[in-house]
């Protein structure tokens, strides 16, 4: 376990109005460790923004405790809170740049009250613009930039005071896939180069897959599942997590097609339709050939997919095991003993029988 840098403890945010009582965040605990890129996913209205805005107290929680960098944020006075906020950068879906200022002035904006000398500030701004690849745009105005470029300015601005934490609230949601990828790569670079901890809100599981090492899934103000990215992708528990993962693997859609195939529709009782999921090293073992040699069971691969999650492969195979009934049972037992997760599929029920 690394060192915790953000600790949210039993956070409740209650938006009370005359006629209703909206629990936007409902007793959430969340610990982010130094160096994490922590993804927070969930559908619109799940309470993601509200939860992360508690980290820099843009949103005061109704109850709960907030520790950031070892500091009890809730006990700070106004001046101390402003100081603490300078160490928590934030980027936004709609960039939120000042249209009246040039790119250079936008990046310099958070440095207005800093103790750096004029030349040090200028040097800092130049370095940041270099880092995000916009040195040549410094005299332009935000209106003259594309969405991706604006977000780069947002990132440079968020880094001006050398923060320890960067909060990204749907920072790529308004961008096309290619631009999204380049922004995500930039975030990962910053995470590696500057050791910055990043909290990344998104509804794009693709983004989580690309950069996050941990993820929390939110639904109706609660965190329904959380963990290391590989664990979550390999063994999702909550239906919402499964639905989100399916948005990148499209496994559900694939299964629907497979269930319509003749050989699957008329599957003999002795044969088994299974899904194999494996992480990392297990891919090196010659599983399929072992099945044939040891159990005389042949495996017919209907579908295969490998995701690379931060450098680790995560595979999904859908296969039909064919052989004598006792042999296929034995083969199943053998696979279960390996580092491979087996899910038996039932084409008639058109759903997974075993989880």
């Amino acid at each position, binding site marked *: 376990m690394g060192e915790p840098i953000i600790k949210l403890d039993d956070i409740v945010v209650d938006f009370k109005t005359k006629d209703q009582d909206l629990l936007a965040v409902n007793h959430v605990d969340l610990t982010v460790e130094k160096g994490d890129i922590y993804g927070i996913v969930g559908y619109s209205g799940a309470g993601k923004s509200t939860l992360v805005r508690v980290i*820099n107290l*843009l949103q005061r929680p109704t109850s709960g405790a907030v520790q950031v960098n070892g500091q009890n944020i809730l006990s700070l006075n106004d001046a101390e*809170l*402003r*100081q*603490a*906020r*300078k160490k*928590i950068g*934030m980027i*936004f879906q*709609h960039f*939120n*740049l*000042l*249209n*009246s*200022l040039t790119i250079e002035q936008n990046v310099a*904006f*958070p440095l*207005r*009250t800093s103790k750096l000398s004029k030349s040090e500030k200028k040097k800092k701004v130049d370095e940041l613009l270099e880092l995000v690849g916009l040195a040549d745009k410094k005299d332009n*105005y*935000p*209106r003259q930039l594309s969405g991706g470029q604006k977000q780069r300015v947002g990132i440079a*601005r968020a880094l001006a*005071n050398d923060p320890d934490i960067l*909060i990204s609230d749907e920072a790529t949601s308004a961008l096309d896939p290619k631009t999204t990828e380049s922004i995500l790569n930039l975030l990962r670079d910053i995470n590696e180069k500057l050791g910055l901890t990043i909290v990344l809100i998104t509804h794009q599981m693709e983004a989580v897959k690309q950069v996050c090492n941990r993820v929390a899934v939110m639904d109706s103000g609660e965190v329904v599942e959380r963990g290391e990215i590989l664990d979550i992708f390999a063994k999702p528990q909550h239906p919402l997590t499964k639905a989100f993962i399916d948005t990148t693997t499209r496994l559900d859609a694939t299964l629907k097609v497979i269930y319509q195939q003749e050989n699957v529709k008329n599957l003999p009782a002795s044969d088994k339709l299974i899904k194999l999921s494996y992480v990392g090293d297990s891919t090196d073992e010659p599983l399929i050939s072992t099945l044939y040699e040891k159990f005389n069971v042949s495996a017919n691969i209907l579908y295969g997919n490998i995701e690379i999650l931060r450098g680790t492969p995560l595979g999904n195979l859908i296969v039909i095991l064919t052989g004598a009934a006792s042999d296929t049972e034995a083969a199943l037992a053998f696979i279960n003993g390996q580092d491979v997760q087996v899910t038996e599929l039932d084409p008639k029920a058109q759903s997974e029988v075993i989880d």
Partner: protein
Amino acid sequence: MDFIAKYMPNVVANWEGEYGFVGAIQQTLYMTFISAIVSGILGLAVGLLVVVTDKDGIAPNRVIYSITDKLINLFRSIPFIILLAVIGPLTKLIVGTTIGENGALVPLIIGCFPFYARQVQNALVQVDPGVIEAAKAMGETNLGIVFHVYLKEGLPDLIRASVLTIISLIGLTAMAGAVGAGGLGSLAINVGYQRFENDVTILATIFVLILVFVVQAVGDLITRKVSH
């Protein structure tokens, strides 16, 4: 010159002197300028107060907001011509007279600044709340947000609002002129209208129009300069 003498005999007769065109133009400019500056400062301050203390503002305060908001509405509901009369005693207290261009200043300012405050409010609520939120997240103070976000980002709209206000202020000075404040309005009514010297009325109107056009043109120029 012959042309003017022929078609506008009364203009020539009424050109110079305190009650002539030269004096009237000076008086109108004086009233407009002084009350624009004072109303500008007051209106900006009050407008900012309403924006900042609004429930979505950076320092929400229900009491201050609703009192200020209601006062603005109250003053804006009093017709100017009645305002001139009703605040006579106050005017006398502040500038010592209720007539002449100085006597007009107090009612002009009181008639104008609530209007401007509302215009300022309308301009500043257009500033993207996301940018305000970003500034907060950067550890900006409320004062910093007012000066470096609201007033900077809202500048083009503020200038438009100011132009609108100055133009309506010119209208008010003319109205004040009718009840003894001097200026082009006074000339048009007291000389042109009352003595049936139509050429005077027409020329006074033309001068008022020129003034309005100049203000509008300068405003447009500045707006174009400051919007990016």
